[in-house]
């Protein structure tokens, strides 16, 4: 549990991921009067409406106008408030991108964005409502912390930790109907520190967000086939836990990244950068949307189609185990 703030989520099993963050944020708001909640006509969809019910005097609905909302949040932060802004990821990260960059990151304002319906979690809404670009966009803004929690419990921990730290934070979650990864709130969570969910020596799957659960399932199935798979829950994309990545390269020499996001600029790119900088060679595969717009569909179908579920990850584990790579300093045999 984060220091300073105390909150509990009772009856978590009957609450969706989004409802849990709404509940936790409300409890934090009741303890810290600096916390204000903002939305753009999505109070109900993003579940920040819970805050509205309980603390209406510190809740602001800006209508369907995201750019304005981000700049207003920046102004509020200048006065010492801690604005928590919630809207769909596609609007927070793209519609309002220049405001996030100029008014929050450049100006070092203490604003937290909770971006819901990320990836293809709102799959049937159509591609306008998918968001497979936000991790990439947000990573490039200096000073931005970028988190993609794996489930509701992690989201609650991330929201709490984000409010306790100074500076802009982007928390990317799904639509809120995703199944839980953790069984309770009782696990170590620290921004910038990966959680090792499975030990393993043959290959490491580094996953973020909703795909972490699938990575765990894939690892467990691989184990039955005699393949030892390490699973890292890389909930923080920035700052990246480089040490955990390099240790995984050192120990397993085969790395797969998985994200409900484009393979350009997100987790996979961040991990690839870390591996390249380490000077260590390894077999490597990035799972995500391969420079294409995701099609319409149920989220679970889309994760399957794009090989981001346990089946797809398991298949990729098989491929990566066969992938050749240079393990020593002699490259002659590679040519």
């Amino acid at each position, binding site marked *: 549990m984060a220091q300073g703030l105390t909150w509990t989520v009772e009856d978590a099993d009957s609450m969706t991921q989004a409802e849990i963050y709404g509940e936790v944020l409300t409890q934090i708001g009741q303890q810290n009067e600096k916390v204000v909640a903002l939305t753009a006509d999505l109070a109900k969809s993003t579940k920040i409406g819970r805050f509205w019910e309980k603390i209406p005097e510190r809740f602001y609905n800006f209508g369907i106008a995201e750019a304005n909302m981000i700049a207003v949040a920046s102004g509020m932060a200048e006065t010492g408030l801690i604005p928590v802004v919630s809207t769909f990821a596609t609007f927070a990260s793209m519609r309002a991108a220049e*405001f996030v960059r100029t008014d929050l990151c450049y100006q070092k304002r203490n604003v937290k964005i909770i971006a819901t319906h990320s990836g293809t979690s709102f799959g049937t809404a159509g591609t306008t409502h998918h968001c497979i670009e936000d991790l990439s966009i947000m990573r490039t803004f200096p000073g931005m912390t970028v988190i993609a929690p794996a489930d509701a419990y992690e989201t609650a921990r991330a929201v709490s930790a984000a409010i306790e730290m100074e500076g802009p934070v982007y928390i990317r979650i799904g639509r809120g109907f995703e199944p839980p990864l953790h069984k309770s709130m009782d696990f170590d969570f620290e921004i910038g520190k990966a959680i090792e969910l499975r030990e393993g020596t043959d290959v490491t799957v580094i996953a973020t967000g909703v795909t972490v659960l699938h990575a765990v399932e894939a690892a467990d199935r691989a184990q039955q086939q005699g393949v030892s798979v390490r699973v890292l829950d890389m909930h923080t994309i920035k700052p990246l836990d480089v040490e955990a990545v390099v240790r995984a390269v050192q120990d397993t020499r085969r790395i797969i990244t998985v994200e409900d996001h484009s393979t350009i600029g997100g987790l996979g790119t961040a991990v690839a950068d870390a591996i390249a900088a380490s000077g260590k060679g390894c077999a490597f595969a990035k799972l995500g949307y391969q420079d294409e717009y995701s099609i319409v569909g149920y989220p679970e179908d889309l994760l399957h189609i794009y090989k981001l579920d346990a089946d797809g990850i398991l298949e990729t584990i098989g491929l990566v185990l066969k992938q050749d790579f240079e393990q020593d300093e002699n490259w002659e045999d590679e040519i």
Partner: protein
Amino acid sequence: MLSNKERKFLEDTARRLRERIVEVTYSCGGTHIGGAMSQHELLIALYYKYLNIDPTNPRWPNRDRFVLSKGHGGVGHAVILADKGFFDTALLDDFNKTGSPFGMHLDWQTVPGVDVSTGSLGHGLPLALGMALGGRLQGLDYHVYCVMSDGELQEGSIWEAAMAASQFKATNLTAFVDRNKFSLDGPTESIMALEPLDKKFEAFGWRVLSIDGHDFDQICEAIETAQAEKEKPVIIIADTIKGKGIDFMENQAAWHYAGVDAAMRDKALESIRKMK
């Protein structure tokens, strides 16, 4: 109505600092001098008569806030902040130089007295609204003033903020339009027409005051009317002249951004000294 003494003080200060803007423009190679001249009386009235600020404590929580939403007017703002004592005027010698605290658009993190960093148009009004709502929520009785250009009203985010300010009855926010009628490429009405501007803001729920933006009596009366308004946010549409005070620059879009050589500087100073 201003006393003769007050009016003379404001006019003398405006003239003195206009000259300084010209000097900085000469020394740094180029500034947004046209817009700095059109906004000038609005900023002078605010900084020398109304803003409750403390140059020795620039981040005092209960200070009035000022947002230059038309961030390109930064040279005019910087000259005033130096004169008010936020920093040494000699620092302006480095204006726009490599490693300088001053870009053309001022940054709150490097220039004492600046409340928010502006430059990207269309941000200032929502930033100012955020500070107004933040102050009100925390029971702080400061006022927020925001000066926009007319060209930047073409940005959609201004109208998003205009809607929100009236929705939230942000009466501790007063906005100005420096209506000099030019943007970079030419007259606003031929590039992308803004009129009828007063009716647009009225329709968005604002109280609109239209004044001569170079007349201190009108400026001060409008500010005091805005301060007393308790129902609606107030916007003061200030009719101004781009390049005001420098005869060869007035109403010329070409002087949106430009440098001056020594001869032009001297001509500009001579023109300013002839102002009433």
